[in-house]
């Protein structure tokens, strides 16, 4: 009875919030827990096939959404916290969304993007059948301290799910060593050979977790991701699912060995790993690979994941990144484009961003110093810090536009910028305000 009442009230609450134009991704979840603390346990019983938790520093939302779309395309009913609300409340809302007003729910799979810091708490209520770990990078230091703290959070969470299959990025020594303590079944994915140059690194994890010596690399793909080994015997595990023959531009495509070619309606090297994570999670599903191919072909990015706006005949790309590893990937993506481009970077120091902006100096903004960049502009609450960062990357003060008001600047660039395309790089709390400005300026987004 309590269950039905809770779902009923929360459904109405979600409806009201939506009418008011709110996102309704977590407030109804908070209410649900208040009314019925065991509600996630209840939902677990109703999942017919698998609960899949997607964790890791970068790529969680994209991976989780491609996974959910692939399962939906395969004809399954899927609960998913699509908008990246990845704490306990977001998980509950994902299920409530799938319920009808009487609490009846038909769910084959639950795809739950899960915050590393909340995983232990959430797994006590709902135990995953599969756990995907995309990668471990340094993220928001003033929130969790160092990467060791995040790894301990994850270990405690995984130990609550001894029967879960672990789907792991084999190219990431941190992820692989994290899982070494567990005897769970493991599926490793990675990129087979050296596909592109990237010696750039944002630190951490290049030491063997077991003996402390520096790892040896045959190649790096991003940061610490690559083909590594250590004298003590630790090395990249045999890959169960691996990518080869990568093409990056104008669209991403690659071959998943033994399955075939995937073509993404989009770009971004990091999406190779996101797609491999999905491919590895659906090995037990008939026609899974065909459905993944279809999902990739029809892929629409999430807000700020190379989201494209067409405004006044110009393409404006919005790229979100929350940490140095992510930002370096954004920089790489911008760098790949041979067209003339105007670049805008907006950095905030809100709660969701971390108050400390020192990480800006760990991003290789020097790579943006290309001849085909026609202008550099900085915005956000820490626009001056970003401007300073660019100054020390080799620009003179006169070459950097300080523009706390991003709207005015974007308008100018759209009307009279000398680039053919505009790239807007933002961190977390700058995302939705910038997206709103682009829509206001008449942009049609290609995002979900």
């Amino acid at each position, binding site marked *: 009875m309590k269950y039905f009442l809770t779902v009923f009230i929360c459904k109405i609450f979600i409806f009201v919030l939506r009418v008011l134009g709110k996102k309704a991704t977590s407030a109804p979840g908070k209410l649900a827990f208040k009314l019925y603390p065991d509600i996630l346990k209840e939902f677990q019983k109703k999942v017919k096939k698998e609960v899949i938790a997607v964790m890791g520093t970068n790529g969680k939302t994209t991976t989780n959404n491609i996974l959910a779309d692939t399962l939906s395309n395969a004809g399954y009913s899927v609960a998913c916290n699509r908008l990246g609300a990845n704490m306990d409340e977001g998980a509950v809302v994902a299920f409530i969304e799938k319920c009808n007003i009487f609490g009846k729910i038909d769910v084959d799979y639950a795809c739950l993007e899960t915050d590393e810091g909340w995983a232990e708490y959430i797994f006590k209520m709902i135990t995953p059948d599969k756990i995907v770990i995309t990668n471990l990078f*340094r993220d928001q*230091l003033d929130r969790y301290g160092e*990467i060791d703290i995040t790894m301990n959070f994850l270990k405690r969470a995984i130990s609550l799910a001894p029967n879960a299959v672990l789907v792991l990025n084999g190219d990431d020594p941190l992820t692989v060593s994290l899982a070494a303590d567990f005897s769970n079944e493991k599926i490793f994915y990675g990129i087979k050979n050296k596909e592109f140059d990237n010696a750039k690194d944002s630190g951490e994890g290049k030491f063997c977790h077991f003996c402390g010596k520096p790892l040896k690399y045959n190649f790096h793909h991003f940061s610490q991701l690559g083909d590594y080994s250590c004298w003590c015997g630790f090395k990249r595990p045999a890959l169960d699912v691996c990518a080869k023959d990568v093409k990056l531009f104008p669209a991403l495509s690659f071959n998943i060995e033994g399955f075939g070619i995937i073509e993404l309606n989009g770009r971004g090297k990091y999406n190779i790993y996101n797609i491999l994570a999905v491919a590895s999670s659906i090995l037990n599903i008939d026609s899974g690979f065909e459905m993944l191919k279809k999902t990739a072909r029809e892929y629409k990015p999430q807000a700020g994941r190379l989201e494209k706006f067409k405004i006044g005949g110009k393409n404006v790309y919005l790229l979100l990144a929350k940490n140095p590893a992510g930002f370096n990937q954004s920089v790489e993506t911008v760098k790949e484009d041979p067209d003339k481009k105007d670049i805008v970077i907006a950095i905030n120091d809100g709660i969701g961003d971390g108050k*400390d902006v*020192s*990480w800006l100096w760990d991003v290789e903004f020097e790579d943006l110093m290309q001849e085909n960049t026609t202008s550099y502009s900085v915005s956000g609450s820490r626009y*001056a810090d970003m*401007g300073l960062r660019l100054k*020390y990357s080799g620009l003179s003060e006169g070459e950097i536009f*300080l523009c706390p008001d991003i709207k005015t600047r974007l308008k100018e660039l759209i009307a009279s910028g000398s680039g053919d395309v505009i790239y807007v790089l933002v961190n977390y709390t700058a995302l939705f305000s910038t997206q709103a400005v682009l829509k206001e300026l008449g942009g049609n987004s290609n995002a979900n």
Partner: protein
Amino acid sequence: MQIRIVHLYPDLLNLYGDKGNISALEKRCIWRGIDVQITEIKTDGVLNLEECDILFLGGGGQHEQEIVLEKLSAQKDALKEYVDSGGVLLAVCGGFQMAGKLGLIDVRYKKAKQRASGNVIIECDFGSGKVLVSGFENHEYTTDIGDLKPLGDVLEGFGNNGMGFEGAMYKNVVASNLHGPLLPKNPELCDFIIKKALERKYGGDVSLASLSDNFENIASKNIIKAVLGENK
């Protein structure tokens, strides 16, 4: 003139944008026509203090700092001699702790009850009047600097131990918990370090040409305003 900067273990200590400190030292020399040579001592590298005018020691993860401490302990005496004879050392964040653990500066650390994390504004004097220095602290230690002079008086933030001081100065050592990174937004401090290094190397009183610090000043003012309020 030439300044030789030695960056200790950038491959191990790379958590808090410390490259920015090197970049600030480098660029502010180059902009003044001072030649710069940067040597990165990586994990397997050998430190030669004879060829160093500014030594930089930053912070890193716990594990990485242990490796660095072990490596530097082997050269403790040479380091101590460098520091005692007026060698310039900038030790930031974990580097501050390590400088103490190596006995380069006489300070003691205790694990704090809780992590101090947030923006910090301190008031310093580098010989030409009071200046505000801003940065970000994120540490779990209290630091007792004994008789050493602090880097500055805390206007906002926790500082060494919550008693109103931040950092430590000893001869030509500047030690601080502040990253952000410390030097780019605080050009007076950066120039103070460059000046000390030039004076030690070439003797006499060095005066540095002034630079257009427009962006530095805006960035610094913005954060000071955000932290202390409008009227500072």
